[in-house]
């Protein structure tokens, strides 16, 4: 078991995310759909992460707490996926290789167990980032 | 009530028989009238040439293919560090692009050349709303578009089954659905074959699966066109475009019109318009022994009055080729290896786009240039031979003034020949050097407005006859004293002294000064609904199309300022 591990992260659409987005970005459905990371079971085992417990994901440009799952659309060992949206974008590097498109797919993140850390809501993350968050 | 009179100009209007006589043209409420009151605003045209607004019978200026060309060529706007065109903003919107200008530049640039009507040469019916959106955003110019029929599954089946009335009813329905003006045919059968990666290179090659030949398709469409009595004839880009030796296929195609007479109420006399004839007048067996076939083709055209043609003059520019002839563009890309776009459109048509450089230092390009001019210079009846560049295929429409210069001046032709690296080979493979004919302003008026307007069945709108729209071009050319420097001829045709659109001055001294409303022209055939055809349409839509029938016809609110040319079929 290791304390943390570097994985290759991607972020893509999911039908659950699409439905939830149309219900509303402040909805519980959106929170449930997007504040999760999908990874390979083997990586979870090595990190000592239990399914449905929280982990901290850090990249060159930020960090976020999300809930760890395996997910139906399997990642191979070393690959992880956070659905497109507010949580993923806390860690997506804005570098574009001079194309305009950020590095949404294929950037290193470190993942570590954070079972006691709380998940933040979408509004807290975004308003918090720009100094507008007033708390619950 | 607004009145205006253009005084003392040399007026050239072949439709009303004015051959450069000094005459006054009166305008009232946007129409040409016999006379106006003494309160009329006066434009002094003394020492200037006056013609009706120019009519472009064949250009690709709006729609999906043109726009994909714009989209895929940023370097057409910004070329080696320079913004091409160099036009300071003069209208409401900026002007962008060289070979495939933005809609705004298209409208402004045509108006500056004294043109007020363009006929978009290929509208894929499924994508018709796109064409009409671009018309909305093209200022000043009246516009029309021809839907393509030469690879349409409905037409294939009706023609194969010899169902003339059904074919005609379907055509009428589609003109209404797309708000189109007439029947365009591009590489009949060949584009459908291209959907399987194949082609039809002669008029007798069978179309895969459909058990029909290009010859049958063209004959069937001519028959339907005359059955309906549409304002324009079938407008064809035949098989085997752009290949050495194709002049024979061209004459074969033209012969399909033999024995058919025009039947319509619009004054049109031809039953077949062969577009961009230059691309179809090639002799030789390969690019190595490539030579002009203009003489052979024009001999045929000259002796057959039921045919009109336009030139498709190569202007020796870097341009963008685009056509519904999908296999041709693929073939071209295999030669030049620059980028290639292709769009096959379900049940109807296809298209391809490839950038192309007509380099005066390449022998073939020089010969192509010569062939186009030969077509104009061999012509006996210039009402039937129209100036185009098949914009943007052989060059951008903004080069029309240069084409006019070449046709009007042997000196100008020689000067261009002198810049060619393979001048001697170009001369050897063509007749251009021996041709001393120089066209005059009346000839040019026939080739750029009267002829195309008549061929389109629109001469009652686009001429200087009484009741016509007051679309007028006034050029800085003294008809009695044409400049000896041909460059001045080009300059005069590039920027008018005045262009009027429905009596409103839109260009003054080469500058855009007003942007009045413009029309979308289309052909409305009034005929009883054909139950069989409506049944066939419903069935194809439910089985094969990916758009619902009810969303296919362009909604009225998406047709900009529609103006229907109506006709009744019992």
């Amino acid at each position: 078991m290791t304390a943390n591990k570097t994985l290759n992260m991607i972020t893509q659409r999911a039908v659950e995310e699409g439905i939830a987005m149309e219900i509303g970005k402040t909805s519980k459905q959106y929170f449930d759909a997007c504040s999760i990371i999908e990874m390979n079971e083997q990586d979870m085992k090595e990190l000592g992460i239990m399914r449905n417990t929280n982990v901290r994901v850090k990249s060159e440009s930020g960090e976020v707490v999300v809930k760890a799952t395996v997910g139906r659309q399997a990642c191979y060992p070393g690959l992880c996926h956070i659905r497109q949206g507010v949580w993923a974008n806390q860690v997506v590097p804005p570098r574009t290789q001079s194309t305009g498109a950020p590095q949404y797919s294929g950037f290193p993140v470190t993942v570590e167990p954070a079972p006691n850390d709380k998940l933040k809501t979408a509004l807290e993350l975004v308003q918090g980032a720009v100094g507008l968050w007033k708390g619950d | 009530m607004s009145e205006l009179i253009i005084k003392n100009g040399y007026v050239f209007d072949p439709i009303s028989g004015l051959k450069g006589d000094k005459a006054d043209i009166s305008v009232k409420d946007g129409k040409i009238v016999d006379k106006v009151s003494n309160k009329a605003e006066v434009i002094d045209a003394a020492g200037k040439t006056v013609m009706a607004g120019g009519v472009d019978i064949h250009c690709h200026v709006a729609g999906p293919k043109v726009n994909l060309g714009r989209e895929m060529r940023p370097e057409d706007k910004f070329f080696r560090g320079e913004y091409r065109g160099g036009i300071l903003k003069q209208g409401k919107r900026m002007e962008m692009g060289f070979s495939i200008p933005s809609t705004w530049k298209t409208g402004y640039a045509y108006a500056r050349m004294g043109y007020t009507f363009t006929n978009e040469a290929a509208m894929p019916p499924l994508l018709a709303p796109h064409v009409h959106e671009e018309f909305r955003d093209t200022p000043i110019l009246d516009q029309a578009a021809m839907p393509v029929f030469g690879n349409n599954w409905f037409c294939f089946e009706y023609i194969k089954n010899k169902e003339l009335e059904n074919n005609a009813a379907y055509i009428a329905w589609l003109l209404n659905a797309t708000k189109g003006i007439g029947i365009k045919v591009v590489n009949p059968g060949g584009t459908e074959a291209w959907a399987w990666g194949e082609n039809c290179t002669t008029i007798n090659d069978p179309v895969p699966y459909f058990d029909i030949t290009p010859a049958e398709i063209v004959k069937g469409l001519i028959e339907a066109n005359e059955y309906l009595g549409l304002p324009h004839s079938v407008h064809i880009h035949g098989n085997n475009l752009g290949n050495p030796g194709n002049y024979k296929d061209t004459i074969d195609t033209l012969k399909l019109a033999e024995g058919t007479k025009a039947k319509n109420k619009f004054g049109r006399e031809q039953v077949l318009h062969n577009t961009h004839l230059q691309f179809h007048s090639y002799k030789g067996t390969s690019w190595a022994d490539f030579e002009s076939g203009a003489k052979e083709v024009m001999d045929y055209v000259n002796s057959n009055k039921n045919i009109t043609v336009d030139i498709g003059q190569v202007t020796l520019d870097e341009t963008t080729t685009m056509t519904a002839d999908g296999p041709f563009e693929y073939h071209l890309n295999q030669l030049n290896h620059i980028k290639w776009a292709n769009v096959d459109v379900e049940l109807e048509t296809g298209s391809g786009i490839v950038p192309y450089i007509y380099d005066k230092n390449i022998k073939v390009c020089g010969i192509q240039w010569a062939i186009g001019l030969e077509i104009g210079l061999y012509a006996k009846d210039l009402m039937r031979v129209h100036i185009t560049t098949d914009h943007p295929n052989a060059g951008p429409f903004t080069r029309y003034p240069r084409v006019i210069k070449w046709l009007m001046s042997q000196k100008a032709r020689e000067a261009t020949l002198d810049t060619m690296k393979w001048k001697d080979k170009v001369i050897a493979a063509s007749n251009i050097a021996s041709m001393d004919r120089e066209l005059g302003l009346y000839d040019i008026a026939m080739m750029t407005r009267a002829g195309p307007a008549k061929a389109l069945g629109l001469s009652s709108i686009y001429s200087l006859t009484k009741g016509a729209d007051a679309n007028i071009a006034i050029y800085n050319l003294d008809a009695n004293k044409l400049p000896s420097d041909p460059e001045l001829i080009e300059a005069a045709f590039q920027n008018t002294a005045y262009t009027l659109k429905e009596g409103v001055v839109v260009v003054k001294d080469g500058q855009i000064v007003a942007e009045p409303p413009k029309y979308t022209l289309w052909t409305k055939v009034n005929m009883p609904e054909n139950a069989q055809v409506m049944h066939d349409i419903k069935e194809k839509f439910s089985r094969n199309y990916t758009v619902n029938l009810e969303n296919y016809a362009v909604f009225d609110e998406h047709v900009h300022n529609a103006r229907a040319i109506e006709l009744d079929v019992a």
Partner: protein
Amino acid sequence: METVTMTLTSQPELFLECYNVTPDQFAGKSLAEIAALPAHEGKIQWKLGDFFKFDGKAGETAADTKIVVNGDVRRMKRFGQKMSAGEIVINNDTDMYIGGWMTGGKITVKGNADSFLGIAMEGGEILIEGDAQNHVGSAYRGDWRGMSGGLIRVKGKAGNDIGTAMTGGTIIIEGDAFIHVLTHAEGGTVIIKGDVEGRVGGQMVKGDAYIFGNILYPLPGFKKIATVEKEVDGATYTFDQFIGDLGERKTKKKGEIIYGNIYLKK
């Protein structure tokens, strides 16, 4: 050669487009005329004099004019764009399009340059003492005619798209490079003295890449054919020669197939 020294006096709020800072534009002008040349910050058209003070004297011709740029010009782009002769020395880091479309003369940047350095360059020389970003000597979007002549030397490292659609000239990166070297090239030479992550020579028809370090992910489209000695940038080394891109179309010259080459230092 006469020298104009321009020294930054105030920073733009956004970025300033210094497309007029070339020997061609300065030549034959007085300092006051030079200071009156336009420069854009977004939609605002300023004068160069609003941001720089000018000393010295311009030559009669571009070839006779040297421009020295002092101050923090990290927020200034397009120095030397389209220059044909003369010299520019930038004593600091600078931004994008340095030497874009240049046809002659020399540009030296004593610090780093950003992306689109020497884009579609036709001739002349660019020396960057620091790093460059992406699209060194590449083509403008959509153009199949990229850098066609001249020399770009970057002493530090560079990013992606080095010599994309290149047709001639030489690019030397003395440090590491990221991905896409000579992609779509139809000529030209790129020398990378450090390591490359990958994608060297993809879709290349013709051209030569010399890689002194490692290619982490080599393309399957290249095949080793020989070990050769070659003189590169003033010294001779032994290389493994690979030809490709075998997946791309090939041209023939005098009946022989022309390949792109990757020379990987042993």
